[in-house]
């Protein structure tokens, strides 16, 4: 069960990442910044200031949005420049979390992060309860994503990828749209990061801002097909479970090797991901 929970956490981040990547046309290497900030904000507010955990989750998202506001200048950059600039921010946030000892507890981290509460007799801190919480979060996000994607804003966002000037002269305020996407994606990631902090019950800079928080979701999103909404989620679950249950038992130290190989094979033979591959099969069969 905790595997599924962890997979859904990855899936939630992958979804937020894909929202920015697919709609905003921005590949981010720095989503770990939002995971970390979201986690820290929620953990500190609940553990130190005694706020209730559900409020912490939301405020974690808000914290990530504030972090994203600081990052707004990166919107002037494109492609790899953007990807890397945002990664630089992630590193900076990590260093801040390490050095700002009085607030964050420094490298020792924050321990005793309160678990999700018991409400109406249901223990949301337990495996099953947490499962429903993260599942709900992810579903709500997927719904938001679908709504944005289907709207005209989604259309304009897609158009901007390769032809930003061309969209602007048509009256699209691309900077505002991109900023909105970045903030939305940051919010989603922050909430998931906050959830994870309460789920694990412990945070420290190296973990909260780990590169893992961006690589694994990217792999998942690409694997499932990041241009679809279900893709990142499906990708996260498949990748995570395959890796943890199958590959791990094949080679114990170095099982990511298979993951890497799978990724390469996938990109070469079905670059649009798993989900389109499956639906295409079905279409052909029908």
């Amino acid at each position, binding site marked *: 069960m*905790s595997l599924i929970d*962890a997979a859904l956490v990855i899936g939630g981040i992958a979804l937020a990442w894909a929202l920015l990547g697919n709609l905003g046309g921005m590949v981010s290497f720095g989503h770990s910044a939002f995971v970390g900030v979201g986690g820290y904000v929620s953990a500190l507010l609940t553990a130190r200031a005694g706020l209730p955990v559900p409020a912490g989750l939301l405020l974690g998202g808000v914290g990530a949005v504030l972090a994203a506001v600081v990052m707004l200048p990166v919107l002037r950059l494109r492609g790899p420049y953007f990807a890397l600039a945002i990664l630089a921010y992630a590193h900076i946030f990590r*260093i801040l979390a390490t050095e700002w000892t009085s607030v964050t507890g420094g*490298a020792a981290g924050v321990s005793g992060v309160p678990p999700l509460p018991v409400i109406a007799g249901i223990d949301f801190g337990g495996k099953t309860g947490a499962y429903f919480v993260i599942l709900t979060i992810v579903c709500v996000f997927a719904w938001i994503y679908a709504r944005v994607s289907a709207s005209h804003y989604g259309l304009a966002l897609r158009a901007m990828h390769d032809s930003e000037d061309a969209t602007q002269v048509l009256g699209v305020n691309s900077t505002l749209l991109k900023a909105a996407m970045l903030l939305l994606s940051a919010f989603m990631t922050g909430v998931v990061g906050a959830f*994870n902090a309460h789920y*694990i019950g*412990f945070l420290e800079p190296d*973990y909260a801002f780990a590169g*893992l928080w961006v690589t694994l979701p990217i792999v998942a999103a690409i694997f499932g097909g990041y241009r679809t909404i279900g893709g990142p989620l499906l990708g996260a679950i498949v990748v995570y479970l395959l890796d943890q249950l199958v590959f791990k038992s094949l080679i114990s*130290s170095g099982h990511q090797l298979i993951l890497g190989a799978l990724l390469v094979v996938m990109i070469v033979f079905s670059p649009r991901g798993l989900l389109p591959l499956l639906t295409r099969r079905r279409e052909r069969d029908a």
Partner: protein
Amino acid sequence: EEFTVGAELPLTGSLARVGAGMQEGIMVAAEVFNRTNGKHRMKIATVDDESSPAKAIAAVEKLASDGAVAITGGYGSNNIAPASDAANKLGLVYITSGGVDENLVTAGRKHFFRINNTAGYEKAALGLFADMKVKSVSIVHSTKDATSSLAQSVQKALAAKGVKVTSHAFDPAMTDFKPVINKIRLQDRPDAVFMVGYENDYVGILRAARVLKPQVKAMVGVWSLATPKMAAEFPDLMPNVYGTALLPFPAKFTSADGRAFADTYKALYKKEPDYLGQFGYVQSMLLFEAIARAADKGTIRKGGIAEELRRTDRETLIGRVQFGANGDNVNFSHRMGQHQGKNIVIVWPPQHATGKMAYPAVPW
């Protein structure tokens, strides 16, 4: 009767090296235990936690569902905390030597045990400095959790004794230490440099120091420095360097336990045992014995293992072990060794010393 004992360890990721070292010790312990204890057998089930907290939780749960009666292993306080939490919830004993963070033992986990702690390292370092009678120390430490907390407490203790201390924290990504050493050389001018980091950090610091040759009298480090491996691989960096060491090298395993460990280790892994293996061995052996005793009393499923562990009082490769109410080893105090030629000589505490310390002396 056969029992499955879970080993939750980082075999990949940033902690892969230390994880593998501890695993060797665990395997040796199982081997030795199974050979000598006619009655019970221990089967080790290993799950890689990939140096990640979430996976450490999953690993513990997987081990529990596979029927493990207790968990040994764990590396890095950030992984151990959530993993031992999970074990605690499942009512499983979790024993480790991989995390020295104070919070691990103050969070009230009833089934948590560890055989080492910051205090033990601190004692050793302070003892050594006191014996050397140094007047000033420059501390160079990684900003990681274990290293910075150890560095801070040593700094406080030294300052309290009137030693002049300066401290330089560095990011784990740091590779070129020349600017730091140069600062030490020209500004701090200490009697000794205290390095708190990991192997790669030591190599970088010592290499920079070898180039800049600061006027210090000793280079002192902590874990994974005074090891035969370092001596073999970096013959020109290690001479006269101090570090924590459990045993001298060439090892003189005098106790029966020590000989059993060393022989089995060599048979299994075809190399000299290191401190990681020793810690892994000790923690696992104590656990196995507790399991065996609990099994005899039929209290395995009734929290008997934790109870038996709390009764532990025995001389081990790392000295006498007794667990306090919070699961911490109350007696833990490390020893300091010094690279002398190809050998490692224990120079502190005096009662365990195998030779005289060369002081003042530096590698260059």
